[in-house]
C-alpha cells in the first residue's frame, strides 16, 4: 500500500523541492548539467573533399557505413534541402542540385519506398524550385517513388515544445515529422544574426507560422525547433559556401569554392565542424552552443569520431 501523505506535507515538500531546484539552477556551473541528454557520445562525422559532386556524396556516405545505415527498405524518406531563394547554383544560396539528386538516388538504392523533397522557401516556391536547379535534377531521376513537392498549407500542425525556451508551441509540417527518415541537407552560408546558417537553421524550412519571430532569440528558438524535429542524418553541402551577404547572396564575389561535404547523424556535430570552414569555432555560433547545452548533440570537435 502507498504511503499516504497529507495535503500540508505535500505542499511543504513541494515548496522545498522547488526552492532546492531553483537554487541549484541559479548556479551557472550547473547549467552544464543539461549537456548531452540524448546525444550519443562520440558521434561519427564524415568529412570528404572532392570536385565530382556525385562521387563526393557517395564517398561521404560510405564513410558513415552507407545509406543503408540510415534508410531501411520500405521507408518513407524526406530529403530536406535548402531551396530558400530564387538563386542559381553558382550563387551558393541553395543546396547543390547534384547533392540532392545523389542523396535521393542513394535512398532509392537503400530501398526507400518513397522519397519526398520539399522546403518552405522565402521567395516564390515555383521560382526557387526551378532556379535552384533542384527541379531539373530531381526530374532526371525519373522515378515514381520520388517527388519534389510544394508544401501543403493544410499539413501544418501546432505541436507543443516541451521545455521550450523561446516558444512553448509552434506549427510544424507533419509530413517531415511523420516520415520514417528525415535527411537534412543544408548548405553552409553566412548569416547576420546566427552568424552561420547550417543544419539547425535549415530545419526552419519545415515549420509554419511567422518565422521572422524566431530571430529575436535565434539560438533558443532553433534549439526549440531542433528538440522537436530530429533528422536522422545531416549532410552539409559545402561544395561552395557563401561567406557574405547571406543567406541569400547573389554575388559571385561572396562565394568560396570549398568542395567539401560534411555528414553526421548528429546535427550539432555537423554544424560544429562546418564552422571551421569559415575560420570560426563552434563556440562562435550561439545556436550551436545553445543546442549542445540542451543536449541535442555534441559541439566539441574532440568528442567526435572522424570517419
Amino acid at each position, binding site marked *: 500500500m502507498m504511503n499516504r501523505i497529507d495535503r500540508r506535507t505535500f505542499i511543504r515538500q513541494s515548496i522545498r523541492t522547488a526552492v532546492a531546484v531553483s537554487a541549484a539552477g541559479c548556479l551557472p556551473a550547473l547549467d552544464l548539467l543539461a549537456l548531452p541528454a540524448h546525444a550519443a557520445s562520440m558521434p561519427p562525422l564524415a568529412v570528404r573533399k572532392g570536385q565530382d559532386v556525385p562521387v563526393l556524396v557517395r564517398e561521404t556516405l560510405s564513410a558513415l557505413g552507407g545509406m543503408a545505415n540510415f534508410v531501411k527498405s520500405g521507408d518513407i524518406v524526406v530529403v530536406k534541402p535548402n531551396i530558400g531563394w530564387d538563386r542559381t547554383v553558382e550563387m551558393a544560396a541553395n543546396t547543390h542540385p547534384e547533392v540532392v539528386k545523389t542523396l535521393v538516388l542513394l535512398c532509392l538504392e537503400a530501398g526507400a519506398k518513397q522519397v519526398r523533397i520539399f522546403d518552405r522557401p*522565402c*521567395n*516564390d516556391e515555383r521560382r526557387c524550385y526551378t532556379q535552384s536547379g533542384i527541379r531539373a535534377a530531381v526530374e532526371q531521376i525519373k522515378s515514381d517513388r520520388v517527388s519534389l513537392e510544394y508544401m501543403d498549407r493544410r499539413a501544418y500542425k501546432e505541436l507543443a515544445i516541451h521545455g521550450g525556451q523561446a516558444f512553448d508551441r509552434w506549427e510544424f509540417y507533419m509530413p517531415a515529422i511523420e516520415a520514417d527518415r528525415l535527411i537534412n541537407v543544408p548548405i553552409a552560408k553566412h548569416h*547576420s544574426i546566427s552568424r552561420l546558417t547550417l543544419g539547425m537553421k535549415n530545419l526552419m524550412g519545415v515549420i509554419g507560422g511567422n518565422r521572422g*519571430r524566431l*530571430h*529575436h532569440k535565434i539560438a533558443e528558438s532553433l534549439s526549440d525547433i531542433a528538440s522537436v524535429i530530429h533528422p536522422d542524418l545531416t549532410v552539409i553541402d559545402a561544395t561552395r559556401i557563401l561567406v557574405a551577404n547571406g543567406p541569400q547572396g547573389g554575388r559571385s564575389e561572396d562565394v568560396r569554392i570549398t568542395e567539401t561535404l560534411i555528414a553526421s547523424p548528429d546535427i550539432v556535430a555537423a554544424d560544429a565542424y562546418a564552422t571551421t570552414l569559415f575560420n570560426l569555432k563552434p563556440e562562435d555560433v550561439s545556436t550551436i552552443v545553445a543546442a549542445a547545452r540542451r543536449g541535442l548533440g555534441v559541439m566539441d570537435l574532440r568528442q567526435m569520431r572522424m570517419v
Partner: protein
Amino acid sequence: MRLSSWTYARRVSQSFCLAVFLWLFLQTEYRGVDQLAYPVSLLFRIDPLAALADLLAPGPFSWQILWPALVVVLLTMLLGRFFCGWICPLGTTLDGLGKLVGRGRKPFSPGWRRVKYYLLIVTATATLFGVQLLGLFDPLAIFLRSLTLAVYPAYNYGLNRVFDVFYEYEVPLLSSAIKGSYPVFRDHLMAFYQPIFTLGLFTLIIFLVILLLERVEQRFWCKNLCPLGGLLGICSRYALLQRTPQKLCADCQLCDSFCRSAAVRDAGHMRSECLLCMDCSGFCPEERVRFGLRTGTDNNLAVDLQRRGVLTAMAGGVMLAPVVRIGPVTHEQNPYLIRPPGAQPEEEFLQRCVRCAECMKVCIGRALQPALFEAGPVGLWTPLVVSRIGYCEYNCTLCGQVCPTGAIAPLKLPEKQKNVIGLAVIKKDRCLPFAKGVECLVCEEHCPTGKKAIVMEEKDTLVDGEIRRIKFPRVVDRLCIGCGICETRCPVEGASAVRIINEGESRRQRSGVPAGPYG
C-alpha cells in the same frame, strides 16, 4: 423559338472566344518560365478603346502590339458590330447568365441609347486633354477586372474550402475521388496562391450591377452604356452588311419584341445598334430575314445624338481635365504611391493604363493591388505595389510583359533589377532592435540586391539599464530598389517596421540629378 444555323454559329463563336479568353486568363500566371509563352493580354490587343488610349498617350502608337484592334475596327466598318455579338466576353457573359438573373422584356426608354455615345465622347475628349478614363467603362477591362479581382479569388477560395473539407474528413468514395482530382485543379485550374485584392468586393458589386441590369432589359449594358459599343456603332454606320427586310414587316412585328437590341424599327434598321446576333434569321415565321451585301435604298436608322448632347459631352470631357487637377499632385502628396517596375512617369502612366488588371493577375508576389483613391481622383483600379500584402519578386518581369498599352514598359531582367520603384525606410518606433532592444534581421536576410541594401550594424545600446551590443538595420539608399520584401516579411505584427516610400523612383523626371536615386 426557331434558331437559324447563323445563331448556332454565333453561339459557337461566343463560346469559343470566351473559352479562349478564359484559358488565356489562366495562363496569365508564372508557370515555370520567365517569359510568358502566350499572348495572354490578347483581349486588350483587340480592344479599340485600349488602342485609343495608346494613340492619345504621349509617344508613338504601339503598332506591333495593337494592330489587331485596328483589324477589329476595319472589320466593323465592313460588317457592323459583330464584335459585340460574336466575340465580346462581357456580352457573352450577359447572354449566358441573362436567363439566370431573369431578363426584362419591357422596352426601356430608347433615349438611353445615346448614353453610350456620350460616355464615349466624354471619355475620349477627356483623354485627348490628358485624363484617360476609357478603361473605367471599357467592357473588356470590366470583364477582366471583375474576373481577376473578384470572381477568380472567390472561385479559388470556394474550391479550396471544398478540397479542405475532404482533406480533413474522410467521406467514403467521395474523398478519394476529390483528393485525386486536386493536383489537376491545383496545377492547371486554380491559382498557386489564393489571390487577395483590396477592391475585390467593390469590383464584384459593379459587375453584379451590370449583370442585374439584364433584368431591366436584355443587353442593357451593351445597348445603352457601353462606350466600346458606341465606338463600334459609329464605325458601323456605313457597313456593307445589311439586314433585309430593313423595317418591321406590317404583318408580323415579331422582331420588335424579340430583337435583343431592338434594332429593327418601323422606319428602318438601326445598323449601329444591331449586334448581328442573327436570331431574327431564325425566328422569322416567314423566313424573310436575310443578311447580305448592301444594295438598293439604304434605310439605315441612325441614333439621333442631338447636337446639344454631343456638345455637352465634349464640353464635359474638356472640363474634366482641369477639374481633376484641382488637388495636389498625388504621387508627390502620397509617398506610398508605388508603381510596378517599368511604370511610366505618373502622368503618362495614368494616360496609358486601361485598368485591365492583367498586371495584378500575373503578379507573382501578390504585390499589385488596385487603387481606390490612393492614386488620386482618376487613379481608380490602377496598380499599386502594396508591400505589406506582397513584394516585387527580384527576378520577375511579368507585369511588363502583360501590359497591353505600355503603361508598364517591358523591362529586361538586368534593367528591372536596377529599376528603383521606391525606398525602404525603417520606422525606429516599431523596429525591434531600435524600439525594444531585441535582435532581428529579417529585412536584411530577405533583401535581394546582391550587395544588400539593408545592412546590419553593431552598436552599444542601453536596454533595461544595461549596455548591450545589438545589431541594427540600416538602409543603403543607393542600393535599395524598393522591392518591398522587407516590408512584407517584417515580423512585427500589424504595421510593418519598414515601409517603402516612392522617394528616388527611377521613373520620376528630375532635372540636374544624375541617373539613380542619389547618383
